[in-house]
C-alpha cells in the first residue's frame, strides 16, 4: 500500500469514526425534537452528550502509516510554537517550508503530530503544486506538555521534519 492510499484512509477513518459514534449520543437538553409553541426545537449538535470519550491512539499507530518506513530529514521545515503555552486549548503554531517549489519538486502534504495528545495526529493535508509558498498558521489543542512534529512530504516521497517541545500549563483536552 503506498502512502497516498494511507492518507486517504486516514481522512475517511477520521470522519467515519465521528459519524458512527453518533449512535451513542443523547441531548443535554432533551432527546429528539420537542414541540415548543408550534415550532420544532431541534437539539443542537453542540448540546449532545456521549457516554464515552473518543478512543485514544499511540504515536506509533498514527505516525508509522505516514512514515511508511521512510526516515524524515531534519531540514527545510520550520515549526514555530511558543516554548511555554499558557492555555492548552489555544496553542498557536506556524509551519514554513523553505523553497518548497524548487525545480520540479513541491510539497504534496503537510502533517502535524502532538506526541502526547489523546490522538497524536492533528491533521493530514494535500496541497496543489502551484501555491508559491508554504507558510501556514493554525491554533491547536494540547492535552499536556509534549513534543510537536511537523512533517512535509514532497511529491517524490521525500520527507522533511521539524520538532519542538511545548510546555503546557492548562490542559486543552478536558
Amino acid at each position, binding site marked *: 500500500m503506498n502512502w497516498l492510499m494511507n492518507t486517504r484512509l486516514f481522512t475517511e477513518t477520521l470522519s467515519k469514526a465521528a459519524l458512527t459514534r453518533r449512535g451513542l449520543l443523547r441531548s443535554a437538553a432533551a432527546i429528539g425534537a420537542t414541540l415548543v409553541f408550534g415550532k420544532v426545537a431541534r437539539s443542537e449538535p453542540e448540546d449532545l452528550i456521549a457516554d464515552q470519550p473518543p478512543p485514544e491512539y499511540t504515536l506509533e499507530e498514527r505516525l508509522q502509516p505516514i512514515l511508511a518506513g521512510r526516515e524524515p530529514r531534519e531540514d527545510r521545515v520550520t515549526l514555530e510554537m511558543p516554548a511555554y503555552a*499558557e*492555555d492548552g486549548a*489555544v496553542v498557536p503554531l506556524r509551519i514554513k517550508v523553505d523553497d518548497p517549489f524548487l525545480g520540479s519538486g513541491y510539497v504534496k502534504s503537510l502533517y502535524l503530530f502532538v506526541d502526547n495528545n489523546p490522538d497524536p495526529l492533528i491533521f493530514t493535508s494535500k496541497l496543489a503544486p502551484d501555491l508559491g509558498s508554504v507558510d501556514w498558521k493554525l491554533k491547536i489543542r494540547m492535552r499536556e506538555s509534549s513534543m510537536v512534529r511537523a512533517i512535509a512530504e514532497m511529491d517524490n516521497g521525500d520527507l522533511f521534519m521539524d520538532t519542538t517541545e511545548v510546555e503546557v*500549563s*492548562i490542559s486543552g483536552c478536558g
Partner: protein
Amino acid sequence: MAKKISRRGFLKGAGGTVAGAAVAGMAVGAGVTALPPRAQAAGAVMNKKAELPKAMGARVVVVGGGWSGLTLSKYLKKEDSKLDVVLIEPRATFMSCPISNLWLAGLVDYEFITHSFLDAARNNDYTFFNATVIDVDRGARKVFTEQGFVDYDYLVLAPGIDYDYGAIGVSDPEDVYMLSTHYPAAFKPGSEHLSLKQKIHEFEGGAFVLTVPSGNYRCLPAPYERACMVAAIFKKERIKGKVLLLDANPDVTIKGPGFHAAFEELYKDHLEYVPSVTITGVDVHKKKVTSEFDEFDFDDAAIYPRVRAAKLIETLGLVDPNSPQKEAHIDPFKYNVVGDERVYVTGDSRPMPFSKSGNTARSEGKFVAKLIAARAKGHDVEWESPRTICYSVVNIDPMEAIMVDATYAYDGESFGFTNVKMINDRDSIQAQSTLEWARSHYRDMFS
C-alpha cells in the same frame, strides 16, 4: 469625541515634566547623574520610623486596601484583638470595582461604591496609614514607605493588579501612556472609572470598543456585564451607536448562556460580540484596533489589556518564574512566600487560578486572617477554599441579573471549580440580591 488627539500636543503640554523625567530616569538608570540633594534626602526620610501609634502586640502590616486587604485587616483583629494591624494604602478614598458597572449605568450613585478608609480603620480598631510602599527588607522585617518604615511581625501583600499592555502589542512607553490615558481599561477603580463614565454619557454614535483579555483577568464576567450596561444606555438614550465587544477568548468565559441571551434578546442593535480576537496593536491616533484577523475602527473605547500581578510583587522579587501573569511565588494553601512564613500574598496577586473578584478576595482574606492569627500563637489551620459569588446585572429596565456561586477543589495537580451554582435566567430577584450582596460587604468592611 470633540477633541482630536495629537501626539505633538501631548508632548508639548506635558512635555516639560514627562520628557524631563524620562531623560532623568534614563540618566540615573545609566548611572550618570546623581539624584538632586532633596531627592537624596528622601532616602533618609524612608529610613526613619514612620509616625504611627506604637505597636501594642505582634504587628501585622497589610499592604493594599482593596477587598482583600480591608477584609484581612478587620478579621485579623476579630481573630485576635491583641494583634496590632496597620493597613498601608496609597489611595485616600476607597472606590469599589465590584458594582462599578452599575454606577456607570446610573443604577447606584457614587456614594454607594465610595467609602472612607478612616471609617474602616476606626470602626475596626486598626491603623490606616495613607502611604506608598517602596521596598521591604524581609531580613530586618521592615516595610519602607515614602513616609518612613514600619516594622512587622507578619506582612500581607494584597496590592492587586497592574496592566500588561505589551500583551496586546503596545509596548512603547509613550504609546502605553497614550492608550492608558485616552482609552483606560477602568478595572483599577478611580480616575479610570470617572473617565469611562464621562465617555459613555458623552458618546454621540458609532462604535464603542470594549475588550476582554486572555488569561485570568480581574473579574471574569465584568467585561460582559459592562458591555450590557453600555449597550443598555445607548438603547435607552436612542444613541445610534453600538458596543463592539472584542473577546480574546473563544467564547464568553463565564455565565455564557445568560450573557448570550442578553446580547441577543436585549441588545441586538446595540452590541456586537466578536470572539477569538487576538489583539496585536491599538492605534490611538487612527482609533483602530488591529487583531491577527481583522481591524476594528472605533469612535471611543475602553481597552482592557491583559492583567498581571501588581508591579510591587516584581519589585520585591517575589514573582513566580512560571507565572505568565507575574504572580507571586507562594504556598497555594498557606499563602506565605515560599521559604518565608512571615510574608503572605493574597488577592489578585496570588498565582492560584481563583477568580480575581471581590467575594473571592474576602472569603480568602478571612481564611488568611485566621491562619496568621493561629500561626502567631504557634498553631496552624487547614486550608479552606475561597468562595466566588458573583452577580452580573444584564438589564437596567427592569434591573435584572444572573449569578454564579462556586468554591474550589484541588485534585492533586490543579484547582478547579466545585459546588457550582449558576443562574443564567436573568431576573429581578437576582438584581435585588446583587445590591444586598454589595451592601453587606461594604457594611462588613467599613463599619
